[in-house]
């Protein structure tokens, strides 16, 4: 039913055909769900993994850099030292110098991959207790639709302490909904549904910005996430819902944008 009303709305917007195709798919996209009731914050997980990998590559870098500097200094040609013409490695040494480093690199790769995969599961499995909001991007705005049909533009109001799931598509070019503070982004594109989720825990404001080149005004495609205390959010949500209901109820003596809508309905 909700899907149905979304569908109707899209048909009336620009690029109708694309969205007619996208509409039903919107609802179908399978999203892995986490019913355990325990919520892990993916942003905190990102910070931890970043630190781990940063330490890892710093160690590798220091080893190689120190080795290089040492060799360059030790074997520089100078009065009293003339090296060069080193013997090719013996077969045993050649094998050792390939097998041992290979195993070290492999071990490091799998260590990083295992950690990466673990975080990936957190990032792609959405807690069951969540608020799901639909996003349609366009040149150049972020259009959000709440479960009760309330729509906002470039302003995503959410309650603190609840995981937020965005189900995304685009009505024109490809955009990418990036939340630097929540360490997550995912492209939104025509004809496909994508998703991302994040976990706002404290009231506050956060930047939304576009990270896929989408056209001339790409760099100005910014919005914000406004995290509200749950009660305040609830009040806003219900109030907007009421307004919407009133606006949608046919009132013959009310002008504005409605005649068009009525015409469409009666047609």
């Amino acid at each position: 039913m909700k899907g149905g009303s979304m569908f109707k709305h899209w048909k009336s917007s620009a690029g109708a055909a694309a969205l007619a195709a996208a509409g039903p798919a919107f609802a179908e996209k399978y999203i892995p769900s986490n019913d355990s009731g325990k919520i892990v914050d993916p942003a905190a997980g990102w910070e931890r993994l970043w630190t781990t990998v940063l330490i890892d590559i710093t160690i590798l870098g220091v080893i190689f850099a120190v080795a290089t500097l040492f060799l360059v200094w030790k074997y520089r040609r100078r009065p009293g030292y003339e090296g060069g013409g080193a013997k090719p490695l013996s077969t045993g040494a050649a094998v050792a110098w390939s097998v041992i480093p290979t195993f070290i690199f492999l071990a490091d790769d799998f260590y990083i991959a295992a950690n990466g995969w673990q975080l990936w599961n957190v990032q792609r499995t959405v807690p069951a207790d969540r608020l799901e909001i639909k996003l349609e991007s366009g040149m150049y705005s972020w259009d959000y639709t709440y479960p009760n049909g309330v729509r906002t533009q470039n302003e995503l109001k959410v309650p603190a302490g609840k995981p937020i799931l965005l189900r995304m598509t685009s009505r024109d070019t490809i955009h990418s909904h990036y939340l630097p503070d929540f360490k997550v982004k995912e492209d939104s594109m025509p004809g496909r549904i994508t998703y991302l989720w994040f976990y706002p825990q404290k009231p506050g404001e956060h930047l939304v910005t576009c990270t896929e080149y989408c056209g001339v005004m790409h760099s100005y495609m910014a919005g914000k996430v406004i995290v509200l205390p749950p009660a305040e959010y609830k009040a806003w949500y219900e109030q907007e819902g009421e307004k919407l209901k009133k606006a949608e109820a046919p009132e013959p003596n009310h002008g504005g944008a409605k005649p068009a809508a009525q015409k469409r309905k009666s047609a």
Partner: protein
Amino acid sequence: MSVIKEWVFTTDHKRVGILYLIGSVAAFVVAGIMALLMRAELSAIGPTLTANPTTYNVWLYAHGAIMILGFQIPALTGFAANYCIPLMIGAKDVAFPRLNAFSVWLFYMGVILALLTFVIPDPPDVLWTGYPPYSTITTGNTALYTFTVLLIGFASIIAGVNFLTTIAYMRAQGMTWNKLNFFVWSIIGSFVMQLIYVPVLGTAVLLISFDKYLGTNFFDPTIGGDVLTYQNLFWFYSHPAVYVIFLPFIGILMEILATFAKNPVFNYKVAVYGGCWGIVIISGEVWIHHLYVSGMPDWLRIGQMVTTLLISVPVGLITISMVGTLYKGSITFETPMLYGLGTLVLFLIGGLTGIPLAVTSLTVNLSETYYVVGHFHYVMAVAGTMAIFAGVYYWFPKMTGKMYSELWGKIGFWFTFVGANVIFWTMMDVGVRTGLPRRYYDFAAFPQVANEQYIMSVGAIIIAIGFTITLLNWIIGAARGPKASDNPWGSMSLEWTTVSPPPHGNWPKPPVVAEDWNPYAYTKR
């Protein structure tokens, strides 16, 4: 007049190589000026140089496309391969000299097409990646992008056929596969990848023009197309393309390290068969790491996270070979070696900072930010450019028979090296700390990075000074440098056994390679 005719109609691989060098350096200057314009625009919030974002986007398009297609690939697989391969394997020329001449002129036409960007009223603004749907709906001229890529790609395929044939059939008597210079192997790997993948790129860019101008719907989801098809085709080529650049520049470095350390390449066979071929084999299985946030299936992203991380094995083996070549060497620090060591450092930083980008769960934050821009400029853009410069300096006495100025060579190096680190380290830093997105004409949403942006613009000026010094040093050296000897570096490699510059046909009679010779057969001093 007759000199011009000689050059235009030349089929001599050395002249073709030098034509490639001149064309690609000219392309580099143009694309470098674009970089300066971009850095000027980004030096402060809001419009600075131009009030029109499209102008910036055209600069960015020209910078990216020309740097890769007009400069690095032609400088490495055009100039370096042409000049050195026949000399290194002891051949008098390439297998198909006329085809070779055809390929360089195709390349010039490609560069001219790319330069038309600055002349036509509707320049392409699709960036070097050309993603639809934007590339199919923009008023910019996407066809110019398509045909530039096709021409240069075609030139490269022709060169690939030519060089693989040359290396297979025209090696000097006694020159077995295991006596080839590492550089020759790197060119083999590079052209094998070009032959496999360029057609895929050609298809992708042709299809966007079909969609835009002929009304097909390959990428239009409203009529059954799919926008992601393009991205998959594009990166199926363009990831390997970074190895097409990477392998030859590592090849140049390896030659320089061996020559200036007077040592054999450390663990040669492992570097060739494990490192070089390992990269060729894995290169085709990792393209999804460019689509980590494009809504590809989750399992595929994880799968290619693992394959991408595996690249560290062949790259690690090659790095060990480079560092190991210094062991017990007799190291001297002429300009080519200085560039060689500097490149090693840049490549190390660039390679290691790529590891976080392989991890899909980290990339959901890092992707499309300045961290990425910093990373790939380290590992490909500046490391590759400095390696090309190292190669030009290294073979300069062979090409011209003259010597450049060591002093100015070194001064140019330090400007470039310092400037590069100032810009690109700062880029990675702001990318991680703030998430500043790339391809932004204006960073109004990120006022906190204003200082860093300014610093980066200063860094760009420092680099520009370094490049200018370097170019002048070459031009002046070639015009009136002192005469160089035939083998000023005391290298064992075959290209140094002929006179400088080598005559048409390279040697009076074809060289024969002795049983105990190899290009790194230095004796202990």
